[in-house]
């Protein structure tokens, strides 16, 4: 068994590195430990538009990344430790998270924290979630990974993951919101580095942990995978399952009802209903047609409306779309 403390904090690079190792290192067990700068990570089959506040995300520039495992949306920052465990898949333990979370619970125990497995795949302290876990199985191998809220900013977590008002309709996997807490609140004194050390001890036992080193050529392939997949709009936004969205808002003194159908992140159909005055001002019949094919992005829709009307009206109209 080998381990790797990922040196980078770029969520796109780290996801690419995790996938690369899962696909290419098939003969050994691997433990990966990694942290990302502030970012939002959605599950593989989620509708990103349903999970985050798109306007806030685009304005703040916070990275949104789609991972290769199922489940819901999580917020990452440097106070959150991610761990990945890659090994041969044992069909007898399919969807049994116990073998994978047990070492984590033991590691927390060695720091004096009493944690327990909760629901199928969470770890909690006194009923509050500190870890979410998910898995992917391919070619006889399993990748299990999880988050560990050590000292994360739980306030920002709430803000970014709150979509605007409006009704979504899709078959996407939805997040299940849980009450969360930080591990640090239950320790007298400890650092995230100490948590890493305890995790290594729990997985390796008395065996000396062997570090994994990738060659320059391999690292180059990871960078290429990052560019080709993980950083692309097509993967992060375009992979959202198709969905419908309905919202009623106000713009230019009129009630505005918007109905959208979005496929692969692009507006596929659009309906705008408003009173006659506004209809003439914004030429809503024409707008409905021209919006088809445009990315369902706050910036893109705002730019579209800004071309033909005052900015404040464009902003109010755009708000009706999200």
């Amino acid at each position, binding site marked *: 068994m080998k381990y790797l403390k990922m040196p980078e904090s770029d969520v796109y690079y780290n996801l690419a590195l995790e996938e690369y190792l899962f696909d290419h290192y098939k003969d050994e067990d691997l433990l990966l430990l990694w942290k990302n700068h502030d970012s939002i990570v959605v599950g593989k*089959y989620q509708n990103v538009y349903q999970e985050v506040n798109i306007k806030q995300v685009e304005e703040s520039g916070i990275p949104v990344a789609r991972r290769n495992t199922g489940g819901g949306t999580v917020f990452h920052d440097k106070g959150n430790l991610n761990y990945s465990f890659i090994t041969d898949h044992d069909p007898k333990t399919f969807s049994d998270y116990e073998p994978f979370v047990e070492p984590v619970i033991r590691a927390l125990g060695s720091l004096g924290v009493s944690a327990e497995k909760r629901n199928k795949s969470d770890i909690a302290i006194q009923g509050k979630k500190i870890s979410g876990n998910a898995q992917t199985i391919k070619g006889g191998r399993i990748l299990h990974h999880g988050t560990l809220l050590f000292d994360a900013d739980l306030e920002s977590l709430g803000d970014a993951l709150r979509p605007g008002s409006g009704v979504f309709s899709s078959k996407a996997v939805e997040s299940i919101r849980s009450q969360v807490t930080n591990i640090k609140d239950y320790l007298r004194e400890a650092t995230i580095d100490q948590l890493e050390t305890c995790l290594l001890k729990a997985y390796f036992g008395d065996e000396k942990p062997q570090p994994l080193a990738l060659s320059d050529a391999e690292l180059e392939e990871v960078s290429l995978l990052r560019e080709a997949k993980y950083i692309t709009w097509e993967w992060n936004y375009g992979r959202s399952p198709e969905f419908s969205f309905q919202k009623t808002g106000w713009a230019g003194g009129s009630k505005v009802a918007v109905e959208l159908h979005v496929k692969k992140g692009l507006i596929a159909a659009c309906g705008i209903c408003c009173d006659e005055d506004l209809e003439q001002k914004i030429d809503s019949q024409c707008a409905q047609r021209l919006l088809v094919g445009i990315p369902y992005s706050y910036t893109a829709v705002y730019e579209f409306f800004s071309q033909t009307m005052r900015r404040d009206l464009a902003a109010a109209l755009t708000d009706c779309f999200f």
Partner: protein
Amino acid sequence: MENKIQMPKMSPSMEAGVLVAWNKELEEPVREGEVLFEVETDKVVCEIEAPCDGVLAEMCYSEGDRVKVGETVAVIQER
């Protein structure tokens, strides 16, 4: 010859899975071992591989559908 690919029973207690993604389109050529579709159950994602070469002749469910174990999900027309 037609080759029917069913929703696999991935654990003794599994009754159904969600077909979360198709990796191939109708009439697209398929090679043995290529990922045909993906299933999610209990936050575990499984990539289901094609068992033979051929063409994807039928897609019996769409993305997001919950499919019972044993139901036919795809039909490959072998060449």
